[in-house]
């Protein structure tokens, strides 16, 4: 629905809706909701057991609460950007707003957690989530290596790209898992933009399996690759040898061949690959189709878990602007059609002077 909270009538509608809701969830900059009279302190007067989740960049508490973030700046400030890239190069960072995705997930997690607390105690609460802060814990053991061991985060050979350790750099863990080789991305047949795969061997046994899959080429059976420390010492040569082989295979064929032999290998998948070629996502029905009112039948990204008794489902696509304004106001607040038409005319429900979309006109007919 659409609502102009800056009008007295809009504010009143917002408060009436809040009073009948279990959860208020908002991601305005800190202080915006308070300025409107919609802060937690005000709304809990209307509904004492309200769960109120705020999702601001820096949170509502703390001296820089007025700072704002978008995904990329939250990623930069939390250490996420720093840990992505090749040594000696600019940070590669995250190629999308990882912490916008994840911020939304934490919003759900916070709301569900507070709901559980309310079910157990009858008590509501305010949850003050900070997007930037959440990214820090997601750097893994990097935090403790700094605070416990005092290891400087800025150091030679870090971050090591896709490797567990960069050739020639000190043998220090990179917070992704064990320090092993091979552990890298390799070009595959075709040479296209996303014709890449990754391979990782976590033990000498897994390496021997890979050697077998590659057909035991002479270079790979050299004694200098037998043990982990030797493979790390000769990593450049190791990766060249492996890539020489991976370039002869199509990336899905390579994945299947390696996995059949217990070798950790996987195609690098683009969005097109996931939607069109990924047999696992297809078998799991991950891209179902939904009818969109304007765009027709489209694939939609699914839900990554299956609950046996109460399955999650995508019931309908994201709403059109104001698609449900009338339904919400009628059903929940008992407003008359005339009240609603007035709200569209007086700037409460729609910007004055802006033409309305046909579906809104229809809904008001």
């Amino acid at each position, binding site marked *: 629905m659409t609502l102009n909270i800056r009008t007295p009538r809009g504010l009143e509608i917002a408060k009436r809706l809040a009073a009948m809701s279990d959860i208020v969830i908002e991601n305005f900059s800190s202080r915006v909701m*308070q300025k409107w009279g919609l802060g*937690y302190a005000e709304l809990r007067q209307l509904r004492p057991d309200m769960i109120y989740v705020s999702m601001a960049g820096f949170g*509502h508490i703390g001296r*820089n609460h007025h700072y*704002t973030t*978008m995904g*990329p*700046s939250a990623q*930069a*400030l939390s250490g996420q*950007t720093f*840990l992505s890239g*090749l040594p000696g190069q600019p940070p*590669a960072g*995250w*190629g*999308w707003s990882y912490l916008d995705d994840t911020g939304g997930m934490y919003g759900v997690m916070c709301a569900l*957690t*507070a709901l*559980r*607390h309310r079910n157990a105690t009858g*008590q509501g*609460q*305010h*949850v*003050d*989530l*900070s997007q*930037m802060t959440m990214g*820090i*814990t997601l750097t*893994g*053991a990097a*935090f403790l*290596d700094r605070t*416990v*061991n005092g290891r400087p*985060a800025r150091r030679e050979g870090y971050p090591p790209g*896709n490797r567990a350790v960069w050739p020639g750099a000190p043998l220090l*863990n990179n*917070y*992704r*898992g064990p*320090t092993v080789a091979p552990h890298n*991305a390799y070009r595959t047949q075709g040479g296209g933009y996303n014709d*890449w795969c990754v391979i990782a061997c976590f033990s000498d046994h897994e390496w021997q399996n890979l050697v077998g899959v590659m057909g035991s080429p002479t270079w790979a059976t050299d004694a200098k690759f037998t043990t982990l420390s030797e493979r790390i010492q000769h990593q450049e040569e190791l990766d060249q040898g492996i890539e020489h082989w991976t370039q002869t295979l199509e990336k899905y064929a390579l994945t299947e061949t390696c996995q059949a032999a*217990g070798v*950790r290998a*996987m195609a690098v998948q*683009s*969005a*097109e690959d996931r*939607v069109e070629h*990924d*047999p696992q996502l297809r078998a799991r029905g991950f891209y179902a189709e939904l009818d969109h009112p304007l765009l027709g039948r489209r694939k939609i990204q*699914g839900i*990554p*878990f299956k609950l046996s*008794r*109460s399955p999650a489902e995508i019931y309908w696509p994201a709403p059109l602007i104001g698609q449900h304004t009338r339904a919400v106001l009628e059903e929940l607040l008992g407003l008359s059609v005339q009240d609603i038409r007035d709200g569209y005319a007086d700037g409460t429900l729609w910007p004055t002077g802006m033409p309305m979309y046909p579906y809104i006109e229809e809904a008001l007919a």
Partner: protein
Amino acid sequence: MSAPHTEDHSALPGPLAGLRVLELADAKGQFCGKLMADLGADVLKIEPPGGQHTRLVGPFLDDIPHRERSLFFWHYNTSKRGLTLNLEHPDGQALFRRLVSTADIVLETFPPGYLATLGLGYDALAPLNPRLIMCSLTPFGQTGPWRDFVSSDLLQLAAGGQMSCCGYDPEDVPDAPPIAPGGGNAWHIGSHFAYMAIMAAVYYRDMTGVGQYIDASIHEACALTTEAAGTTYIYTGKVVQRHTGRAASFDKSEPTQFMTKDGLWVNTTRTGFNLTPARLRRLATMMEQYGLAQDLLDEKYQNRATIQENLAHIAEVLEHFFTSVPQEDAWRAGQEQGLPWGGVRSMDEIIDDPHLHDRDFFTEVEHPELGRRFIYPGGAAIYNASPWRICRRAPLIGEHNVEIFCGELGLQREKLTLLAESGVI
């Protein structure tokens, strides 16, 4: 402040107090267990006798490798209690079944079907406890052609699409590979969705009294977590290209990451973003304090159209400003004018951030066996009625065996010795 700490806030129970979780999770799912434990659930981490293999992952305290010194293990297992149990031994299975009848949630990350072969699958456990919620969090889920594939964080980021979005513009790094960001984030992404699914099942149980089984797939969780890359393809048929330090897109977008005087980096917004005449003037006034505003204080910029026409020039002035001031000054300068800029910080800068101190983010955790205290990262959110906090360090191997097996299940101490000697605990 809207949600002040009350004086005894830290003494309150967390929001998940009263829930018991049996965690049979390794690197793939232990972050989900940590979230529940730090939020107040009683998480019993069940390891094989001698400790889980995650204890062998570095870095280690003072670089001395030892199963009790893995910072990787420490990070992901705070606030949990630790048990050892051999699930392949009939006596271990019997003890596990007794624990299941005391539990709300079982979280497991074994290969699909493994627990069922031990007689410990959901179908075998649910009759013992109809309220049980069991979540299997695995690389590819319980069904499908890839369900038995071996995996790793790197493999999941390849399959899920993260790598195809992350990397470099060719003019920055020619022939660069797709990059898998570090930190173990495939496991974090999977754990986030497992947490959501479990909490949804807890809510359902609160309403109906019955538990259920959850089949959660890390691959699907990752595939969902690439923001617009998926929908860009679905709606336009286009595949995104990787860019240095900014969002992948199918077109060539302008750079947003700049080096600062100290050789570090800042991540900014597109130059025109939110750049109103008033904001540009404030920004230029601040830059003038460094003598770096050039002509941006000129009256002609107090006009939206002129700003839009001169974005390339403004970007140059800004870039020069960035190269002339330290990182910290650069990003805070933007923030003070309402622009969401950020320094590309490492832990070296983060641990001194006073804002995070204000939020009590830095949590001192005692390691009594070492006689030392260390600083851990705390909660991402401040709950005003039930704190998100680390209540103790990760458990030592089998640290709570006596407490649980004897204290709670009533085993005699002598029996415990026997179980240890026969490889059950």
